[in-house]
């Protein structure tokens, strides 16, 4: 099978064996053997995992960005997550050689520039995990990569070391000032963009951060690609629960699925102020002009 076939190929479900588990500051990282997923992976893709084992009472799959894929054992994927509920707590308790049900790769990956250019990669908390595969792909195309990573505190800044090795420059921010600059990623971003003369911004993190990053990029008039985090149940586009208001090519706002139509969108197309609502001018909004 050629590489192009794999790209066109669909996601697969695999029962993978856990190869390694480790703690990374406040987060957990799991490496799972999943050749079918590793082969098809592109930066920006995500995977979903079933949690709780057989006969689980937890019916929704948990979605995670992929930190890394490696060719060992036919192909492995590494997931990074923080414990936020019963499902992630179960994942954190997994041991080496346990099995995990994964579906992936899912979603639309980051579009990559055709010609070499300067890219600023912004990651807030463990959203930063998705940026390193992207950074690799960009550097292979001859792009300059600059990192801006942030979190509320030092133990929640993910990947600072790797960013320092990879990036032309790396700027860290924490809200409590325990690492790097005190503040948020959006506070330092204008300076980084100006110093690097950046051509494009890529961002991962909570909606509030993405909104701020998009606003900064808009000020500089450069394109911004954001990977949104929205609560999902299925990850494959059937449950319709992870919708966000996004403006289409025709100028019409639609409630689109973060999983199947995203998670990567052009920042200026996402109506961040209206996330969590149905904008009155969205297609099919109650009482709207299209209704």
């Amino acid at each position, binding site marked *: 099978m050629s590489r192009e076939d794999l790209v066109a190929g669909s996601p697969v479900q695999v029962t993978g064996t856990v190869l390694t588990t480790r703690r990374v500051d406040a987060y957990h990282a799991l490496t799972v053997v999943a050749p079918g997923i590793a082969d098809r992976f592109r930066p920006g893709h995500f995977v979903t995992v079933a949690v709780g084992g057989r006969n689980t009472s937890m*019916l929704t*799959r948990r979605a995670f960005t992929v930190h890394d894929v490696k060719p060992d054992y036919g192909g492995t994927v590494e997931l990074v997550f923080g414990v936020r509920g019963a499902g992630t707590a179960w994942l954190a308790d997994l041991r080496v050689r346990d099995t995990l049900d994964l579906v992936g790769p899912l979603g639309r990956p980051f579009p990559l520039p055709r010609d070499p250019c300067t890219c600023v990669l912004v990651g807030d908390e463990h959203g930063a995990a998705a940026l390193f595969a992207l950074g690799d792909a960009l550097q292979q195309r001859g792009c300059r990569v600059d990192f801006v990573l942030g979190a509320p505190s030092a133990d929640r800044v993910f990947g600072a070391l790797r960013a320092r090795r990879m990036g032309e420059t790396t700027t860290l921010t924490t809200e409590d000032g325990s690492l790097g600059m005190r503040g948020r990623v959006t506070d330092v971003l204008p300076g980084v963009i100006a110093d690097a003369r950046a051509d494009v911004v890529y961002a991962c993190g909570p909606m509030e951060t993405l909104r701020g990053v998009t606003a900064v990029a808009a000020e500089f008039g450069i394109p911004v690609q954001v990977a949104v985090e929205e609560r999902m149940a299925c990850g494959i586009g*059937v449950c319709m629960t992870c919708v966000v208001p996004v403006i289409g090519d025709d100028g019409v706002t639609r409630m689109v699925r973060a999983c199947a139509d995203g998670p990567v969108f052009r920042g200026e197309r996402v109506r961040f102020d209206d996330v*969590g609502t149905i904008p009155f001018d969205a297609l099919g909004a109650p009482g709207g002009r299209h209704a």
Partner: protein
Amino acid sequence: MTADLRTYLAHVELPNPILTASGCGGTGRELAQFSDVHRLGAFVTRSITMAPRAGRPTPRMAETPSGLLNAVGLQGPGVEAFLERELPWLAERGARTVVSIGGGTVTEYTALARRLAGVSGVTAVEVNLSCPNVEDRGRVFARDGSAAAEVVASVRAATPYDVPVIAKLSPDVADVVAVARACVDGGADALAMINTPVGMSIDVDSMRPALAAGTGGLSGPAVRPLAVRCVWQVHAALPGVPIVGMGGVTTGRDALELVLAGACAVAVGTALFHDPYACPRVLRELEELLQARGFDRLADVVGLAHRPAGAQPRTRTDLEESSL
């Protein structure tokens, strides 16, 4: 040897009894990434409405023990876009398509049925009766036998004779048999049950409802006993009416339970969110369970749990040995 899993919705033959539940299979394209849609007994669409609908605000989903609360609000592109982009794709792939329709008034249901009449690729029409009736202070059609029957009768009248009309019932009623009977009297060729009962969950951290809409439909294994009870009661009262059973089916055993209660077809819903291969898996497991119990026809098992205590299940061997 393979078991004969054919089943009938009124006169329409399905090669196997496993369907997708409305609103759980997307447009079909999403599931087709994992398994062929034509291998399903039938693909049931999300409820199609006349105009495009943006649905409810997020959060639309909350996980509960063995269940899932959702309030999507029938998001969809409207019937014209459905007929232009989604139905032809399903027809091309040889899927038998049951089109679910939803509306706020009897007129809207009728208009939808008229729009679908004569369109090729419509195997059956399922009437989603769990929509609020705009003309009756938002009371859900399915909660009132006469309102449900009125909708079913007008859809039946507008639908070609060779396309069965399936009435989808809600368990949130005092007497599900009365509503079922009213729908059959109104012309329903088959019944589907259960739609999701209404539930609610409150996030104790934010101290607000977990769903933006407040309440939502509860699905998943948590509601399966409710589904078995409804199918059982309706099959006991109306043994000749084909029933599509659904509610928390995740394995072949769950499907068999509904079949034993009286369902001749079984729809898989929330399980698809957990396992995109759920439909072919449930079908395979159901076939294995039938064979392990000595049955080679699905039809022999439909409603079998209703036989009197102590009676042996009738098998093919009995028939062969009889003088008939």
